[in-house]
């Protein structure tokens, strides 16, 4: 009996303990959830602390989010047409999408990078690469618009791009696919030794940000995957990860994964500058488009360039060294001090970290392990700085905080792992939902990371949100990294694949953000800056309407004398000079998008009327209390009609 009582008491005790555990578990979960919510909550009317520029991958665009809230502010059209903003539809921006292959309305936008001064983010520009038809775009952060796109010749799959050097001397653009250079008709199976890779260095004018393809380094026919600049002591070097050092051209998933080690290519671009100055380059004939949008004419122009300066890495000593790096490295990341270069061997469980000072020592003492097409291969053991052992499966990309920690994404094991630079010990790991690709810490690619948050950009979402059919939302996740342990704070949906990102303290950008375009500085060829200049001109079948818009009417709003078969250009100027008063315009039957015109701006769409009648146009952006009244009519007469051109407002 006594025994039974004892057992009973013990059971009760265990039950009590279990209940207590359960309770404390629940309450601590509750407290955790509450603190996560508080950490991402930005009160109505308040601003986020950081801008996050997250590329849209196959959407071809660049989206702007706030951190920590994860709120989406804007999708900046870059490489893809955007009917909402008339990007690539209006006459002004069509030239931005011109290439040597003609007008291309889409691309695959991958790696945004923010301009730097002295190794720190300066918030002037974001550069981003178009992967498919090789291009580099520049987004001006005073207007959050794409203002320049340069096509990259001799490149294919412009992937190891668009990373900037410490003072934005260059934006680099490395080819993923090696190709015949120059392009020619040849058998694919003669790839090995004949195909070449090109690494392009695009100079950026320190004053106006103007881009120029300064030179290309011609490399062996590997695949060049990602890149990062040296900084501090390693400033002057650019590091590119490679795979397919096997030079395979078919069944790549197997054939390019055979070598135990591929390379990180260290390019000495200061040396390249010397060779250029000495004239050791080949001026190769080529053809590529350089498209520039002018803020004062509100118009883009496309110029075809015909020549590129090429430096052959096999011929020019000291230009490139190869650092053996295990298992098809993807990310190639440089820590804030510039000493360590991380090779994220994506088919490996380890992270290989090279040491810059050891690399220089190995070069000076010629510790070579043979060469590849004349390019010295440094001895692996002599450049190895350390290894983060068994950190996870499938490392892709490493970012850094300001406290000497690295944060590596692991695609296969779907997690982010925090480790200590120098000791190489793993400190913490947190799961990602699911299959994280790249990660981002604001300022993570600079001498001075802002830290605080880590954004994981996931490749797979599955059940994380309400389902939307077979195609579910794309998603990123936000982690608090201010403590020893990382804490998952937020899932937030993104536009397009959240491929890669760059983040910056909002205070470095928002003060410079323009409110309006000054009407007095509008130099558009067809601008109408006062109602006195409103007119319509006919030149054969071409008709130019010089139209204005202001709350809440178009001038003119009654137009007669247009004929079937005419090509009618609506050049519409928004006369507003008030913050956030854009107007839109669209015409029934126009084979194009609406226009969304900012205060002080002029844009143009073309309408080719095909049917006789009286056809309305109207304002598409709810501009004012009288927005619904902001409309007009165009009378379209038969082609042989002799009704003269006339226009009016309020008559």
């Amino acid at each position, binding site marked *: 009996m006594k025994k039974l009582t004892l057992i009973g008491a013990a059971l009760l005790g265990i039950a009590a303990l279990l209940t207590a555990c359960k309770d404390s578990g629940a309450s601590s979960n509750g407290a955790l959830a509450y603190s996560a919510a508080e950490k991402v909550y930005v009160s109505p009317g308040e601003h986020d602390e950081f801008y996050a520029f997250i590329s849209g991958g196959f959407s071809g665009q660049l989206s702007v989010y706030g951190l920590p809230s994860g709120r989406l502010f804007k999708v900046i059209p870059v490489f893809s047409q955007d009917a909402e903003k008339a990007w690539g539809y209006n006459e002004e921006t069509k030239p931005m999408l011109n290439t040597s292959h003609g007008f291309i309305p889409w691309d695959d936008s991958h790696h945004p990078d923010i301009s730097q001064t002295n190794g720190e983010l300066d918030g002037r520009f974001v550069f981003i690469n178009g992967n498919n038809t090789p291009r580099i775009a520049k987004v001006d952060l005073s207007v959050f618009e794409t203002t320049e796109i340069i096509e990259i010749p001799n490149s294919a799959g412009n992937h190891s791009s668009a990373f900037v050097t410490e003072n934005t001397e260059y934006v680099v653009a490395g080819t993923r696919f090696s190709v015949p250079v120059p392009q020619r008709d040849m058998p694919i199976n003669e790839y090995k030794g004949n195909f070449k890779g090109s690494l392009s260095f695009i100079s950026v004018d320190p004053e106006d940000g103007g881009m120029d393809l300064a030179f290309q380094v011609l490399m062996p026919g590997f695949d060049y995957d990602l890149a990062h600049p040296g900084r501090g002591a390693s400033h002057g070097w650019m590091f590119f990860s490679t795979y397919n050092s096997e030079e395979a051209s078919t069944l790549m998933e197997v054939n390019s994964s055979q070598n135990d080690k591929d390379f990180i290519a260290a390019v000495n671009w200061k040396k390249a500058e010397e060779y250029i100055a000495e004239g050791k380059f080949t001026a190769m004939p080529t053809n590529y488009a350089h498209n520039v949008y002018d803020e004062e004419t509100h118009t883009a122009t496309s110029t075809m360039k015909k020549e590129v300066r090429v430096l052959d890495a096999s011929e020019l000593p000291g230009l490139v060294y190869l650092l053996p790096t295990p298992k098809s490295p993807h990310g190639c990341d440089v820590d804030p001090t510039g000493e360590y270069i991380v090779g994220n061997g994506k088919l490996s469980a380890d992270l290989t970290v090279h040491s810059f000072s050891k690399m220089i020592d190995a070069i000076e003492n010629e510790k070579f392990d043979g060469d590849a097409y004349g390019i010295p291969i440094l001895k692996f053991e002599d450049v190895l700085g350390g290894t983060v052992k068994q950190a996870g499966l499938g490392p892709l990309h490493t970012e850094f905080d300001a406290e000497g920690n690295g944060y590596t994404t692991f695609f296969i094991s779907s997690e982010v792992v925090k480790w200590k630079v120098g000791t190489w010990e793993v400190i913490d790991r947190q799961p990602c939902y699911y299959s994280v690709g790249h990660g981002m810490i604001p300022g993570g690619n600079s001498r001075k990371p802002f830290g605080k948050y880590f954004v994981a950009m996931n490749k797979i979402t599955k059940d994380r949100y309400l389902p939307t059919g077979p195609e579910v939302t794309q998603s990123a996740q936000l982690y608090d990294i201010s403590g020893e342990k990382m804490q998952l704070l937020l899932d937030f949906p993104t536009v397009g694949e959240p491929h890669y990102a760059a983040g910056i303290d909002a205070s470095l950008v928002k003060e410079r953000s323009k409110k309006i375009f000054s009407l007095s500085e509008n130099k558009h060829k067809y601008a109408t800056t006062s109602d006195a200049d409103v007119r319509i001109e006919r030149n054969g079948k071409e008709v130019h309407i010089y139209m204005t818009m202001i709350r809440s009417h178009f001038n003119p709003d009654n137009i007669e004398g247009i004929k079937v078969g005419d090509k009618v250009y609506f050049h519409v100027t928004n006369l507003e000079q*008030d913050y956030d008063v854009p107007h839109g315009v669209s015409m029934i039957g126009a084979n194009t998008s609406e226009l969304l015109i900012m205060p002080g701006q002029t844009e143009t769409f073309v309408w080719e009327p095909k049917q006789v009648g009286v056809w309305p146009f109207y304002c598409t952006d709810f501009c004012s209390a009288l927005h619904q009244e902001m409309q007009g009519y165009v009378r379209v007469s038969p082609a042989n009609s002799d009704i003269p051109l006339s226009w009016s407002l309020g008559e």
Partner: protein
Amino acid sequence: MKKRSHILMGIAALLPLLLFVFPLWKITLEAPQYPTPLGMYIHINDFSDANPHDIKNINLMNHYVGMKYIPEAIPEFKIFPAGIIITTILGLLIAWKGNYKWFLSWAVLMVLLSSAGLYDFYLWEHDYGHDLDPKAILKFTNPDGSIMGFQPPLFGSKDILNFKAHSYPRLGAYSLGLGIAVGFLAYYIGKKEKMNELKEMS
């Protein structure tokens, strides 16, 4: 050696010249959708924007209720500067040659002229707020059925539809006021100086 009162009178006469440097008045319009309020400075010879394009944007707002555009120029922009220059010259002449009784006359004259100016300003505001376009897009009536006016206050703050209007003098007006006050002070001190003189003589 000039007497203190004469020096003060000279200062009194010069102070209103600051009207050519600083604005006389400011009207500010606040509304929820204008986190930066719209504002207009009234100078002695000009209207100007508090922030770029404010007057244009005030006009755009006001056209909905049929108010006239704020004019580029009004006759007052010629009359007021002339008045200030003339009274300043007059004041300086008085400071140089006149006696303290003239100081009083000058100060009183300035009070009268300023009042006339304010009254003129009120009339302009009244006309601006009440002489509305009969084809106005939005028409409002007061509870008693009369047409609602949109006159900004002469001095103070007032709710006008979705806007809160503020109207207050600025540094130019304060300079004028101070000039007048110093004029009276010059009179008071001049009078004391005269009495002291008489005492010493007796």
